[in-house]
């Protein structure tokens, strides 16, 4: 059984030596190869741009998720002040789950960062090779016999194909990584019931709703107590559970 290196070398060679077989007119092959290379270079560039966009989007999401953590923390405090330990526990449980996903995203983000750097360098090398091919194809056309040209074209095209495979794989892996990060981000959305943050009056979040009921409740109590005090020295307010200030 061949090793990883042996296997990979075979696969790449098989993939990028096809152009050789069908070459009849070396000059045409050269021009066609070059056009093809330019087209693929564009694909690689587009792939890199996609990764960059996905990464930026994730960075924005990350900031939002950090706010969710702070919000859940604040909710836990509010709940405790209102003597609702059950709610506080729920908020802290969610906070821990969100934090765990965030840590995972953070770690994947660092790996993606490193991969992105390699992508940029790989694309630079690919551009340089395609440009070198453009120059060399004119030399080959002018100076070599058809048979010789064939061999040289084959080599150069394989060399470039290999670089394509290299950058292509890097793009693919970076995309996979952003997808994994996106999956984590959606898990967080589920945990925090999305939208609750943007819309402060939202009634979508259970904790939000219960907390607002508590604060409304204690407001009513406060008002009631004030009214009673104004009306006369009757019974003093004594049952204000949610008293915090």
């Amino acid at each position, binding site marked *: *059984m*061949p*090793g*990883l*290196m*042996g*296997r*990979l*070398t075979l*696969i*790449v*060679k*098989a*993939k*990028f030596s*096809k*152009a050789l077989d069908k070459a009849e007119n070396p000059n045409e092959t050269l021009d066609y*190869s*070059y056009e*093809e*290379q330019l*087209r*693929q270079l564009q*694909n*690689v560039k587009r792939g890199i741009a996609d990764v960059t966009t996905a990464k930026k989007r994730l960075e924005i999401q990350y900031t939002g998720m950090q706010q969710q953590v702070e919000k859940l923390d604040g909710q836990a405090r509010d709940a405790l002040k209102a003597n609702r330990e059950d709610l506080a526990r729920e908020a802290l449980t969610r906070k821990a789950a969100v934090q765990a996903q965030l840590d995972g995203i953070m770690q994947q983000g660092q*790996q993606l960062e490193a*991969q992105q750097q*390699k992508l940029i*360098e*790989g694309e*630079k*090398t690919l551009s*340089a*090779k395609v*440009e*070198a*091919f453009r120059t*060399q194809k004119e030399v080959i056309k002018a100076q070599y016999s058809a048979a010789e040209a064939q061999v040289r074209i084959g*080599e*150069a*095209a*394989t*060399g*470039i*194909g*290999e670089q*394509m*495979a*290299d950058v*292509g*794989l*890097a*793009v*693919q*892996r970076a995309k996979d990584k952003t997808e994994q990060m996106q999956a984590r981000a959606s898990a967080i959305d589920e945990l925090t019931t999305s939208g609750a943050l943007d819309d402060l009056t939202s009634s979508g979040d259970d904790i939000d709703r219960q907390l607002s009921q508590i604060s409304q409740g204690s407001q009513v109590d406060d008002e009631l107590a004030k009214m009673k005090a104004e009306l006369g020295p009757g019974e003093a307010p004594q049952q204000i559970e949610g008293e915090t200030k």
Partner: protein
Amino acid sequence: MIVRLMGEGQFEVDDDLRARLDALDDDVARAVEAGDERALWSGLQELAEAVRSGGAKLADEDLRPSDAIIPPEDLSLDEARELLTNEGFIPDIEGDAA
């Protein structure tokens, strides 16, 4: 001979290095069979290190193909298995290769 470290570039190394690279490559394949990701990574790292320390980096404009291609150092066990069992590992960049 010329060796490519994927994600890093091509290196020109002495032909004598071939035997050592093949031996390390066998270790890596065994690590995959054993499902040992740590051994896989350390094996790939050793391969890359052998090439880096024993070779000179090729210029970007050099169009020569490599004699051996070494996968990325952080290859996962799943990716390694995919590499050994089918060809899906290397993505097609739309259309036939140049």
